[in-house]
């Protein structure tokens, strides 16, 4: 299972491509690719967004569902999704509506 992630051009904010076909700032409602065809579709979205100068560093990343929530497989991507583990008041995790994965 994969989702599409990138950094927003203007401020570098970590974003994912959402189920509602827009770039979103938290991973929870990212669009899941469960097969090759959906992966390709996401890749095309990424190429188009890069070409449109909306985002940079576009990448498909591995995720799994934990208690129904999307959790990246690699630690690197879990840190991108939450923020630095040494500064819990910075990054996504500092947002009032952020709910950590148990």
């Amino acid at each position: 299972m994969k989702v599409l992630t990138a950094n927003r051009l203007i401020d570098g904010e970590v974003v994912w491509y959402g189920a509602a076909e827009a770039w979103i700032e938290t991973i929870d409602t990212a669009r899941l690719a469960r097969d090759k065809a959906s992966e390709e579709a996401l890749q095309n979205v990424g190429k188009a967004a890069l070409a449109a100068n909306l985002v940079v560093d576009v990448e498909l990343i591995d995720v799994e569902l934990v208690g129904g929530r999307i959790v990246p497989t690699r630690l690197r991507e879990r840190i991108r999704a939450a923020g630095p583990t040494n500064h819990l008041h910075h990054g996504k995790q500092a947002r009032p509506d952020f709910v950590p994965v148990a």
Partner: protein
Amino acid sequence: MYRYDEFDHSFVQARVAELRDQVERRMAGEITEDQFKPLRLMNGVYLQLHAYMLRVAIPYGTLSSRQLRMLAHIARTYDKGYGHFTTRQNIQYNWPALADIPAILDDLASVEMHAIQTSGNCIRNVTADHFAGAAADEVADPRPYAEILRQWSSVHPEFSYLPRKFKIAVTGSTRDRAAIQVHDIGLHLKKDAAGALGFAVYVGGGQGRTPMIAKKIRDFLPEADLLAYCTAILRVYNLNGRRDNKYKARIKILVHETGAEELTRQVESEFAHLRDTELKLPAADIRAIQAYFAPPALIARPEGDEIVRLARLDSKGFAEWVDQNVTTHRHPDHAAVTISLKGIGEVPGDATDSQMEAIADLAERYGFDEIRVSHEQNLILPHVARADLKAVYDGLVAIGLATANSNLITDIIACPGLDYCALANARSIPVAQDIARRFASLERQREIGELKLKISGCINACGHHHVGHIGILGVEKKGAELYQITLGGSGDENTSIGEIVGRGFPPEELTDAIEMIVDTYLALRLDASERFIDAYRRLGAAPFKEALYAREAKAA
């Protein structure tokens, strides 16, 4: 310190204007990321995990109070209220928006600073001994030569597209605090028998995935020949350094593959053509640059001894801080102060905006307006009257920066690691925090004595783990963090590369392993005067391997 002349001002302002235009065109979609990336990198703008990162050059680690206040202003206005001082004596901001970068560079230019050549395959910020101009054991201040090298190397047309990045370090003392033997060029400023100044020249040191100790290719190079000789080295490297493989492109690989003797021959041959050209430094020019670095007018403050004596009796904390963080100055009534950015459980090298402002105030009031950044990620007040040490200490206590751990096991170098860095494979900062908490007792730290612990979150070795007495390298293995331990490294005048002690440790076992190594040392050292590194050199790895792995060897 050095002041920009009209040329410097207009040059830096022109570069800011150029980048502003590039950023605007990028955001308007007129240039692609592939086109823009090399342009932003030339101005120190990286993209990290969470955001852009701006690396600002601090030439040879020297700052005025005004400059440090501006760094604080930038942290507060454009970032999240803190900055990260690095092992290259620079500062990094972890959260700037691309759209704000031109304004940040404008602010920097207003205090004669910039971010040029903090990335890319060019000559990077020249680093120097952080006690330069203050140290009692110094032959001469190395910073004028670092400044000459900075001017020569800034947008040098021949050396802007080298095979790979290039780092130069300069020390003016036999006791090397600038780690010159792990730089592409290391310069040791010294005097010959006649009292003339010149350099021992080291080439081809470095850390990263292939750590190498530099080779000394000249025992004494007259100061007038500095630029001609460095040009000769760079020319040989630029011509022959490998461009086919990024991992073999540093000059250390060229030195290794060519052999020091043949490389020296090539450099000397090139130098023979260059030594009597316009690259020869006129004595008047050297003296003119030296004038910028004229030492402050230190006056006799003989009352200092008595003030310090009484204050020590009054405050144990002050006494411990003086013992650990105060260094002998060439002037007997003065001292150099190390401000530890390694508070127990804090992030090595981080300082908040208000801490930076408070340090700027202390430097202005008690330190002749000078601050240094050390490659060990601390800040230094190089010239403080001993009579003012208690006032400085009290000022540091008030901002939580009076930790008395300079050169002790909790004075840890750590790269940003996987918490920020796009290249990292494992985290460094939490590892440093955990080890510091375990060894929090100052009494215990002082019993252990000098111990340099350095942590990198990937093979690129920004955390200098290869030259840590104890080095830690984070790797990713089967999707999890794993930490290799090296022992016996050292980045001083007796440089050595640490040796991997055995299999790596998962994060939850690492601090125990470090403690086991330290306890083994304590049990085996001859006496308290035998430092960890000396004991390791005497004993070798065997007793440490035994302590760490014997049980599992028996079980297997």
